């Protein structure tokens, strides 16, 4: 496995100064009361993608297993929650727990065979897993098939609901950050990074590689599933094509790489930027918005392959050219 670029080592978690963190916290708490509903939705989406990119980061960024089809847990979480709520009439929080448990189990069961594969093969196997799961959900009766599934209508003021989901997604994002930053300084975290650099070496030093890989994927799956569950409740209607959508998976990946794979805050930064660019492109260049995104992705991969977090020490033309020189043929 080629190691991912990006900063690493024990000093990977550079917690911003306390004052800055408090300030950011206050802004995030107060912002929804100031900005309009449109921006609340935009920021809520950013939170969701931030959490998704962080979840991908655990298995792909830290452990080095490119789980390209991780969106399968987004869909599973959404469907598990929606089914629990519609068929068994459980509350949102109980259904969320159901979703998490199902995603964890799925990751564990499929992880043992799949995590033996490396590199492209693993990436493709996860992709196949997503497509196969989608085909099953589309065709079995109780999920509503391709017609999709409507969740119980949320009663209450639209304004309040917007605020509610703003804070649900914010909570999700914070859990993703907290889980990531806690895990990386544990045995598991060190083990995962060791696996990424050299799996054989890690195993010969006594790292239980299989168990760590599966655990890391379960964590990633749980967070992704939570996001799916929250999303399902937020939009109120899900269908296989929307929640098992590979473009969500690719977005999570792009955000992670753009921000910096294997860093705590990189995926958040990536999510913020990709969503902002997407927004500007949508409003300003309607017909060319995917092309814009495509060009940005190409430019990022060429010039800042280590992600934006690798530019913390300053951005110079020379550094960009050095990046190109490092991986050109």
């Amino acid at each position: 496995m080629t190691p991912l670029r990006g900063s690493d080592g024990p000093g990977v978690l550079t917690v911003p100064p306390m004052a800055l963190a408090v300030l950011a916290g206050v802004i995030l708490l107060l912002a929804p009361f100031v900005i309009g509903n449109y921006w609340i939705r935009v920021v809520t989406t950013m939170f969701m993608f931030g959490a998704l990119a962080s979840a991908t980061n655990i298995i792909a960024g830290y452990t080095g297993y490119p789980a390209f089809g991780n969106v399968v847990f987004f869909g599973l979480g959404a469907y598990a929650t929606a089914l629990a709520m519609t068929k068994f009439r459980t509350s949102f929080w109980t259904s969320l727990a159901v979703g998490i448990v199902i995603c964890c189990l799925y990751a564990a069961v499929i992880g043992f065979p799949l995590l033996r594969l490396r590199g492209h093969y693993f990436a493709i196997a996860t992709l196949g897993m997503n497509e196969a799961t989608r085909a099953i959900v589309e065709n079995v009766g109780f999920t509503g098939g391709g017609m999709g599934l409507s969740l119980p209508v949320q009663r209450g003021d639209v304004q309040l609901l917007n605020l509610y989901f703003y804070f649900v997604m914010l909570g999700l994002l914070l859990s993703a950050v907290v889980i990531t930053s806690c895990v990386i300084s544990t045995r598991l975290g060190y083990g995962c990074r060791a696996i990424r650099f050299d799996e054989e070496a890690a195993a010969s030093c006594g790292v239980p590689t299989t168990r760590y890989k599966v655990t890391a994927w379960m964590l990633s799956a749980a967070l992704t599933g939570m996001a799916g569950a929250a999303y399902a409740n937020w939009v109120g209607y899900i269908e296989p094509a929307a929640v098992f959508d590979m473009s969500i998976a690719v977005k999570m990946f792009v955000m992670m790489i753009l921000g910096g794979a294997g860093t705590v805050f990189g995926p958040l930064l990536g999510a913020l930027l990709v969503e902002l660019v997407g927004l500007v492109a949508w409003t300003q260049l309607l017909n060319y918005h995917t092309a814009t995104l495509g060009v940005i992705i190409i430019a990022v991969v060429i010039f800042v392959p280590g992600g934006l977090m690798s530019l913390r020490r300053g951005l110079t033309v020379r550094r960009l050219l050095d990046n190109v020189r490092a991986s050109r043929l």
Partner: protein
Amino acid sequence: MLILQLIINGILVGALYACVALGFSIMWGVMNLINLAHGTLIMVGAYVALLLFTFGGLDPFLAIPVSAAVTFAIGYLLQRWVINLVIRGSVFLTLILTFGFDLLLVNILLVLFTADTRSLTPHYSGLGITVADLVIPYIRIGVFAVAVALTYLLHVFLTRTRLGNAIRSTSFDREAAELVGVDVTRIFPLTFGIGAAMAGAAGVLVALTYSFSPVLGGAFTMKAFVVVVLGGLGSVPGAVLGGLTLGIVEHLSTLVVPPGYQEGIGFIVLLVVLILRPAGFLGKPFYAEVKA
């Protein structure tokens, strides 16, 4: 009789699948590069044939060289000036880069041709031969024949010519190839170009078989994945075996499972093969596997 018809259809489509996957397979095998824009290059080939057919009245089968030339040029330039810059980076980067290129290409196709579904209908479409109860459209036979011919040509090129041998040696060991004088900076763009040309040619065959639109490329990239993994990386006979297997399995599966599962079947087969035999039916240790 139904089973026989299904197997025939499976073989006819399977040859097309092999053709769709070949370009993808050699890029992956030689450069350890997964080209997520492969399906969209196939669509480019389809649209070139559509243009020539609508405005020049050119028979789609004769448009194949033109389509292949156009996608060869796109592929060569892309590899020479863009992908070569990052090819030594991690597998993530090239994966994401080709995805970015795919977004760009789909957008260009959408602007040029709109999202409307098109189809290529030469005057002999709809005609076919009937033997006993078996129906085989002429177009399917033509597509099959061309797919087989293209596959054979690529095989001969890779195994019998100097350039083909240079490409194959690069896929076995890049450094060793460089030591014996292979110019890898030139071989990589050529490999991508040839892979893309195969995609363009396959695009014409796809356009003759299905209706198409700019956003359908992804579905063919997926097919290519399945075929390559089934048959084994970078091997022409492997792609043929993988393509035929997928075509036949997809068609026969309609006997036992509801048609909605047809798309998913390929992926279930893929997962099983990956778990049991990650190198595919005919896979040998290639550059990608040694390095990965």
